């Protein structure tokens, strides 16, 4: 996973991601996968995935277990190298970019499960999150004003907080580091419905501020209201892309059909 840019040019980590900076001919999507293939060892899991996250829009990635949503997220975050196809940030090919470079470019990824360091305190977690270039004061301010409970627990070990609080902490990273694209994987996992609603309220607020988001969810209800577009993933392929309500219908039939 430390791969160098395979072929294509690497992006300068200072230039950042900004919409529409590429070649003339209309704004490029902020994040794009073209016929992307990826594998865990000898086993290919993504068999040619095409996805576009337009600037300022929210793309919901739906599909049953094992469809490859998390894998797609890992590829976009730079955690898993492509074995074929292209990964593009704002039109530029960045195949083989390292996850730390992607993060510094403004791709903020909150992985499946809790994206926090259990053995660090809340404050220390936020401090680590400044690795992408954010300032600590802003990070804390953003986190504590949105989730006051985190402010109260700033010196508590993150691992000893409730699942909801941990997920708030994970989301705070996105709030404070001012990313260009947010990758959210299964934000609702193991959370009470009320907390899920609260989480997605926060996400909606980020959307209103113009952040572009790629969000994977197994259960569509929470995410469809904020999505502009939805894509259905089955067996490592995107089988259809369209308006959220259309995709939702297909989604239920895909569960029934296996």
């Amino acid at each position, binding site marked *: 996973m430390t791969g160098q840019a395979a072929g294509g040019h690497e992006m300068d980590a200072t230039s950042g991601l900004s919409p529409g900076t590429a070649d003339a001919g209309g704004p490029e999507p902020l994040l794009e996968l073209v016929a992307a293939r990826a594998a865990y060892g000898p086993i290919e899991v993504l068999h040619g995935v095409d996805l576009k996250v337009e600037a300022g829009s929210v793309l919901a990635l739906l599909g049953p277990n094992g469809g490859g949503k998390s894998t797609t997220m890992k590829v976009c975050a730079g955690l898993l190298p492509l074995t074929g196809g292209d990964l593009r940030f704002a039109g530029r090919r960045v195949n083989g970019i390292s996850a730390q470079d992607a993060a510094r470019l403004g791709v903020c990824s909150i*992985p499946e499960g809790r994206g926090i360091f259990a053995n660090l305190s809340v404050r220390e977690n936020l401090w680590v999150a400044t690795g992408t270039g954010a300032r600590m004061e802003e990070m804390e301010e953003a986190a504590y004003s949105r989730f006051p409970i985190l402010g109260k627990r700033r010196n508590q070990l993150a691992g000893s907080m409730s699942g909801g609080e941990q997920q708030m902490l994970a989301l705070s990273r996105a709030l404070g580091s001012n990313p260009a694209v947010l990758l959210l994987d299964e934000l609702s996992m193991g959370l009470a419905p009320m907390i899920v609603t609260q989480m997605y309220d926060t996400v909606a607020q980020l959307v209103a501020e113009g952040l572009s988001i790629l969000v994977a969810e197994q259960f569509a209800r929470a995410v469809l209201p904020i999505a502009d577009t939805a894509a259905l993933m089955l067996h490592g392929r995107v089988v259809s892309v369209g308006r959220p309500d259309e995709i939702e219908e297909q989604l239920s039939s895909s569960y029934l059909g296996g």
Partner: protein
Amino acid sequence: MTTFLTFTILGLVLGAVYAIAASGLVLTYNTSGIFNFAHGAQAMLGAFLYWQLAYGWGWPVWLALVVVLGVVGPAMGGLLHALIMKGLRDTADVTKIVVTVAVLLGMVYLSQWIWHPEEARIVEMFFGSNAKVEFSGVVIRVHEIICLVVAAAIAIGLRLLFTRSRVGVVMRGAVDDPDLLRLNGHNPERVAALSWMMGSTLAVLAGILITPIGGGALQANALTLLVIDAFAAAMFGRLRSIPRTFAGAIVLGMTATYVMAYFPSAWTWTSNFRISLPMIILFVVLIVLPQERLRGAAIRTRERYRVPTVRRAAVWGVALVAVVYLLKLLMVETSVSTFALGMTFAIIALSLTVLTGYAGELNLAPLSFGAVATIVVFHFGVVGTGLAARLDVWGVLLAVLVTAVVGGLVALPALRLRGLYLALATLAFGVFLSNMVLRDTTEHTVFGVTFSLFPNGSLIIPPLRIGPLDLRDGDTFLMTATVLFALIGVGLIALRNSGYGRRLAAMKDSPAASAMLGQNLVKLKLSVFMISAAIAGLGSVLMSSAIGSVASENFNVMAGLALLMLTVAAGIGYVSGALFGGLMSGVGFVIIVATFNDLAAANPDLAPVYQAIGSLSVVSTALLGIGVGKSPSGTVHDVVESYRSLRDARPVLVGGAVLEAALYGLTLAGIMDNWWFAILTACLVMMLPVFGRMVMARVAPDEGRPAPHRTPPELVGVDEPYTEELRRELDRELGLSGHDRGPTPGGRRPVRSGAEEGNVHVVA
């Protein structure tokens, strides 16, 4: 009172140095997940270099310190990380431990090559041992004050680093989840590299400070082990907490000093006890401290072993005996006894195959269990005197039995421990045994019986006699040892193929899952530990009688570590791995060094060159161990894999066999000498698969016949894509849907169909 204060201060000083060493260890463990057994060796190497600069070349002390601490320390750590440790992600505990052990051994060999062990080297205290200050009757040397101040500064510095600086906080995050660090824009490798540099520098510092305290004489093995004592301190903090590590180090240092001060010095074992105290404390701390919970999901590692069938193993066993017999015909008497000694080591290595290869538990002191057997057999198994003295079978059986029980007793308190912790417990036992038992040359009187465990510092072990078989004869010894090896080897493979063996494998893969399935892990571990100890005991009794007169050096921890390392390098999951590892560590070194010494004697002009090559090849055996990081399943595995493709190339195999037979004939007839035979055989073995692939590619360019299915069923979908074809095959194997072929190999009742099965549940 003054005495008390003086000893308290001495204890504090010792503790301070332990703390410096232990904190380096904790640092690297936390950022890279690797427990660095080579930490002591790094300290040793640093101290030797310091000696070379400051005393050997007479540099000013400050300059030597700047170079050693400012350049050599960080560089050593950085290189270790970049060249070796970085490649150890996703490997099993065994691999990580063995690689660092290999680094340890490599450094010890290297230092003994550069700095001849016979020469005396003294590192003096800073400002000399006469520079001292006095507070109300208590005398403190300046060197001791320096130790205290430096330790305090490091404690404060590390505390600040880990809580007040971002890089320190990031270091603490590194062990939890390196990928998450990446997502936060940090480079975990850079963090790990930094911590290795710091850890290495701390090791070097500890080495320089502790040498004068321990008397000043530089001695590679002793210094390495001295810093290993710091493991106990690190364990106080459960390898996590630096403050607790410091506290532990102080306790350790003080206890050791008080024992020295207040235990009657008339007790001869007081000083032995003091030396082994850190290991006793390590053992106790390991057992008393709460453990990590069993890991849930098995962590996927890169090690892969195949299990042969018992029939195949039996065929190979017979083949081994035949080959050894044929080789024996080529050898002169002394070579035969060397070979026999190697074979006894191979038997000891089998104890590691079952324990580590099959059950995934570690024993870092296999030879120490062997020492127990040897002591028992010395006291109870010898009949006759002088040249007529022999071991009798009952004595050997008793020794094996006692060793099994001791193995069980050591394992019993350590049963909750897993992986690294259990490994450290066995190491503690090994060092304890070397220090306390193997040095116990005094007489004790218990219940009116007077005896001493290790009289005169060496034990004379006569050869074994089993009925008409008298092992005084070298040929008989070799063949008996070989047959025993083959029998135990086949027995182990049968064991691995039994339900018990599968339970062991399950425990190795996921202790949590197998506990959940109702396995009694305690019983399982205890039994496998006892089996392993028994095998080690048997091998060691034979080894001792092959050597004739054994001293404590024959059982020291370093030798045991070398055996483990070479066995893992050859393939710990395989009986053949034990064969090669045992032969290599038992006699490989001796042969290599002897050969080059002979060459040197024969060509005086080139003598330095030959001697250098000899030393170099000893150092490079450590590279074999380091290579485990690259190919964690072992060399045997790689060779077997390469031969697998030859199964369909009969002509090549037959051709190879004929060629080998011809070579043998030439050698037996005395036309070719043994060295050529060995070299050509090695070439043949290595070239055959290459040649075979070439031939097969030509004869059958693309036969279209599906390759026989190789991945074991449990790894399908993990090691290779899960196709429809495979799904059908698995269904067939499991007796599902339609393909009813009677009872499956495991004797399970074939399930007829999913629907019927469901009905049964509803009705019941």
